[in-house]
């Protein structure tokens, strides 16, 4: 493959030429990343398909948090090429981002849900489905 001709960023082309087979740790990281991508597909489908604000929040809050944590952990493992001090430092830094997102993402979801509930946004019930002109915006 002559990818270095199509990519004009020199650093990127240089890193693409030195391809090597992944270590077991990196392989595990790739698996985690693909699992996170699977959960993000669920989030994207839920954001389109669900009929109500609260159901959309259910899809977005859970899937977004879990997929972000899985993907970041996966890339933390992928970036560990050797077990030197710098790699460990980098890994713990990425784990710090994961911890931060684990705390803040449900918090912001909860704040938004509370704001919507106090703004009289009612959840969809069976009566709404039976109405002829249901809110299908």
């Amino acid at each position, binding site marked *: 493959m002559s990818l270095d001709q199509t990519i004009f960023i020199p*650093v*990127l082309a240089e*890193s*693409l030429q030195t*391809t*090597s*087979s*992944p270590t077991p740790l*990196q392989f595990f990281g*790739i698996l985690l*990343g693909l699992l996170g*991508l699977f959960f*993000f*597909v669920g*989030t*994207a*489908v839920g*954001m*389109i398909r669900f009929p109500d*604000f609260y159901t*959309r*929040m259910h899809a*977005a809050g859970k899937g*977004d*948090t879990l997929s*972000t944590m899985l*993907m*970041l952990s996966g*890339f933390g493992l*992928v*970036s560990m090429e050797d077990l030197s001090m*710098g790699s460990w*430092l*980098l890994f713990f*830094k*990425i784990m*710090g*981002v994961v911890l*931060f*997102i684990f705390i*803040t*993402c449900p*918090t*912001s*979801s909860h*704040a*938004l849900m*509370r*704001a*919507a509930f*106090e*703004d009289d*946004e009612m959840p969809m019930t069976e009566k709404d489905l039976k109405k002829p002109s249901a*809110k299908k*915006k």
Partner: protein
Amino acid sequence: MIEYFAIFMGVALFVLMIPVVYRIGAGPTPFDRMLAVNVIGTKTAVLLVIIGTLFNRVDMFVDFAIAYALLNFVSAIVVSRYLNRTISLDEMEAKENAKKIKS
């Protein structure tokens, strides 16, 4: 191998962001839009780490990701508080009085 994986993940994330952007445009309530913006902001932090992996500079880009996640969190909290206060003070007092009468 790792670089191709990083490129694949970045492109897939970008493609999967398109339905979320649709929700920003078509969301019936402002909360829907804010939720979609929140999702995209969280995913941008992941995208920054992916770009760092591609450039072999993860140590630098992780700091950007931290800053972006913090900014995203603060914006979500601020907007939800702001939207909560859009009803006027008189309406709020009337609502609280109604709650007191009910209980």
